[in-house]
């Protein structure tokens, strides 16, 4: 394993250990790189409090999607790469001593794309949140809908919004944390209807990605397009919180909402 990592943003070399100790955030330019679900849970939930739901739920190639690589192969590759069965890990956890329903998406698994399993896991997480009357917390990270599931992936947008709507009706708070990158079908469904939206610094959060927009309007787009800081200025997110502060921010919010 290499001792040094080059920051993709500022280009500086970082000692591997320093980079990991800093939770995969560049110590020089504060670039928040992609964090896997399990690492995220480790730094967010109270030690030993996380219990996963529906770990064995798996996607199926019900459309027999025609591709150079079959959907099955792509799923297997993603599984080997991430050690996960799907693009989201859900379960119960405690944050600062408060029980919560926690969902964490994983961009490493087929670009965090939302298919039937992601939708169903979120629906069940909402059910749990309602049953136990605990806040719903989801870390979003996704390129959008999973094309290999065709229209069914579009339907997951409606499905997750409906499930979240039931949480809303019960007046249970829902917090969503936007991480790099969150776009497409996930940003246009459950992610943007949270009561409070927290964004990591520099997180891309948009519907159409920068490349698509630049192609559509046939113009260069500003470098801060869709980024957290611009979204904050435009009123699209409540706040920006660094990776290290998110846990305390969430704990504080839970306390505020539970009085």
């Amino acid at each position, binding site marked *: 394993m290499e001792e040094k990592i080059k920051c993709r943003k500022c280009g500086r070399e970082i000692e591997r250990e320093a980079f990991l100790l800093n939770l995969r955030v560049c110590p020089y330019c504060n670039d928040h790189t992609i964090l896997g679900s399990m690492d995220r849970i480790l730094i967010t939930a109270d030690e030993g409090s996380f219990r996963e*739901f*529906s*770990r*064995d*739920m*798996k*996607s199926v190639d*019900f*459309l027999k*999607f*025609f591709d*150079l690589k079959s959907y099955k192969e792509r799923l297997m590759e993603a599984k080997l790469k991430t050690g996960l069965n799907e693009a989201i890990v859900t379960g119960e956890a405690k944050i600062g001593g408060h029980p919560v329903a926690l969902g964490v998406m994983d961009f490493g698994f087929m670009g965090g794309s939302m*298919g*039937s*399993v992601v*939708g*169903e896991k979120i*629906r*069940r997480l909402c059910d749990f949140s309602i049953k136990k009357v605990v806040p719903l917390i989801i870390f979003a990270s996704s390129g959008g809908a999973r*094309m290999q*599931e*065709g*229209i*069914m*992936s*579009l*339907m*997951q*947008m*409606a*499905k997750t*919004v*409906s499930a*979240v*709507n*039931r949480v809303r009706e019960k007046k249970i708070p829902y917090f969503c944390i936007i991480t790099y990158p969150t*776009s*497409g*079908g996930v*940003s*246009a*469904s*459950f*992610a*943007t*209807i949270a009561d409070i939206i927290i964004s990591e610094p520099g997180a891309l*959060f*948009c*519907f*159409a990605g920068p490349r*698509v*927009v630049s*192609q*559509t*309007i046939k113009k260069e787009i500003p470098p801060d397009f*869709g980024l957290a800081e*611009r979204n904050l200025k*435009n*009123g*699209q997110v409540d706040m920006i919180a660094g990776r290290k502060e998110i846990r305390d921010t969430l704990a504080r919010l839970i306390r505020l909402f539970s009085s």
Partner: protein
Amino acid sequence: MDLKKLKEVPKSYVKEILRSLSKFERLKKIPFFAGIHFKDAEKELDGKIEGYRMIDRQSARVWRIVELSRDGRRPQCLDYVKGIFTDFVELSGDRLAGEDKSVMAGLGKIGGRTVAILGQNKGKDTKERIKYNFGMSVPEGYRKSIRIMDIADRFGFPVVTFVDTPAAYAGMEAEDKGQAGAIATSILKMFEVSVPIIVVLIGEGGSGGALALAVGNEVAMLENSTYSVITPEGCAAILWRDPAGTKLAARALKITSPDLARLKVVDRIIHEPMGGAHNDPRRMVKIVKRYLTDALGRWSKFSGEELKMMRAQRFEKFGFFEETDTF
């Protein structure tokens, strides 16, 4: 004999097959290779080619429907509104930032009952297309829909939507104003209202931009319309970085009315006049009017709570997965 080439389906597979085929034919002509050695290979090659030919034929069939669904002569939202509702009053603006013409909103009467109408127009000539931004909506449009649905909810008007959009507009300003949030909130609003919602997909059902108006108690689809998570062009570009794959993507995505009915994403297929809706727009409008009268009658007997619950159940059951353990 390079069969390996065939095993991995190449980017634009047709070309590749033809290339392999000609290579194979050439090889056969070399005396050294002549004879029995090729039998199995030949059979395998034949099978593959036949398989691909079938895929190719199916793709062409699906593509014809895609072209029909995008046909500019097809009746559009405005035609249905004019031909179906009486006392129609168009409503404008989201009361926040502006007015988006691509989304048409208003109130009208059908069978003596007031309904709220939402829909997308693409326009029939260049001038109209520019006015309607080719049916691609911006946050103002989705927020206008939300406002109209709110009126419908408070006054108990059923909502009818006509969906026809290539996609939500991918622009700088649209993004800055919260395109994603506007779509999500529109979807949310459709789960919140206590009135019946009837959705008719009349042309192109393009991704999130279409779904923003398509959460109905009942979703109907014209025979030659399409409904997809991504355009075939977009899908081909992302998966294969090759526009030649567009037709293949159209087939793979399963976007036609029979496929969507099989997946239960649409409840009704509304048949079009021979050759497509554009051949007899007036008759098409009449058929849709009859369908809507019937559907509104069927859904009017449920209470607000029942309607909401049925909508939630309709959409929350979507998905295919397998599970060995349960939680």
